C-alpha cells in the first residue's frame, strides 16, 4: 500500500510538472505579466476531492519547486508559491462546503492570482494593485475551464479506482 502511494504521488507530480510546462507556452502576458491558466491545479483539485489533503499539498509544493527549477526563475517561484499556498487553503475551505470540484477550481483560480498579486505587492509596492481586477477575472474564467476538466476527471471510474 505504501509503495502504491509513493508511486502514485510520483506519477501525479510528474503529470503536474508536465502540465505546468505545457501551459508555459500559452502566452497571456498582454493581460498582465506572468498570467497562466493553471492546468496543473487540476491535479491538486482531484486529490483534494478524494480527501487526500496532505498528498495534494505535497504534490503541489513539489510541482511548484520542480517547475521553477526546470523552466522558471527564483522570481517566478515566489509568485507561483505565494499563489499556490493561498489557493490551496482557500480550496481546502471551499472543499469542506460539500460543493463540486468545479466551484473548488473557480475559488482556486481566483485566489491563486490574489496570492500572486500579494507577492507582487511585497516586491514592487502598491502600483501592482492595478492588475488585480483583470487578474481575478482571468483567474475566475480559467478556474472555471479547469473546473470543468476537474469535474470530468473526478467522475472517471479509473481515476477513482487508482486514488482510493
Amino acid at each position, binding site marked *: 500500500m505504501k509503495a502504491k502511494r509513493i508511486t502514485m504521488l510520483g506519477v501525479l507530480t510528474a503529470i503536474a510538472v508536465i502540465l505546468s510546462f505545457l501551459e508555459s507556452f500559452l502566452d497571456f502576458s498582454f493581460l498582465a*505579466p506572468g498570467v497562466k491558466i493553471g492546468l496543473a491545479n487540476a491535479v491538486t483539485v482531484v486529490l483534494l476531492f478524494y480527501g487526500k489533503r496532505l498528498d495534494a499539498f505535497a504534490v503541489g509544493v513539489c510541482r511548484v519547486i520542480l517547475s521553477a527549477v526546470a523552466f522558471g*526563475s527564483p*522570481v517566478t517561484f515566489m509568485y507561483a508559491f505565494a499563489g499556490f499556498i493561498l489557493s490551496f487553503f482557500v480550496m481546502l475551505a471551499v472543499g469542506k462546503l460539500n460543493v463540486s470540484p468545479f*466551484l473548488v477550481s473557480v475559488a482556486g483560480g481566483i485566489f491563486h492570482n490574489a496570492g500572486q498579486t500579494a507577492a507582487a505587492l511585497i516586491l514592487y509596492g502598491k502600483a501592482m494593485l*492595478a492588475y488585480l481586477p483583470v487578474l481575478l477575472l482571468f483567474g*475566475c474564467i480559467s478556474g472555471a475551464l479547469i473546473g470543468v476538466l476537474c469535474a470530468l476527471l473526478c467522475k472517471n471510474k479509473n481515476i477513482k479506482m487508482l486514488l482510493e
Partner: protein
Amino acid sequence: MVKKKEIIIFAVILCLLTVWVGFSALAKTEGSKVAVTVDGKTEIYSLNENQTVKLPRNTVVIENGEVFVKNAECPNQICVKTGKISKAGEQIACLPNKVLVEIRK
C-alpha cells in the same frame, strides 16, 4: 454533478469581477509623468518630453506621450511585448530585471 446553484454562484462572481474590470478601465485618465523604478529606486520623467532612458538591462523610450520598453535583457521579453502605455496607472513590468515603468498623473 455540478449543481445549478454552483453555476449561479460562479455567474454572480464572474459578473462582479467583470463590472470591476470595466470600472477600473473607465477610471483611467491621461498621465503626465513616467516613474521608472529599478530595484526599488524610482526616477520621475516627463511624459511630454521625447527621450530614451537607458537602464542596466532595459531601454525605455518616451515618445509622443507614450512609453514603451524598446529592448530588454531577459528571456521572456514580456515588457517589450506589453507595448505602448499612456494612461495614468498603466504599467510595464520586467520582473526578472526588477524594473517597473508606471505612468502617473
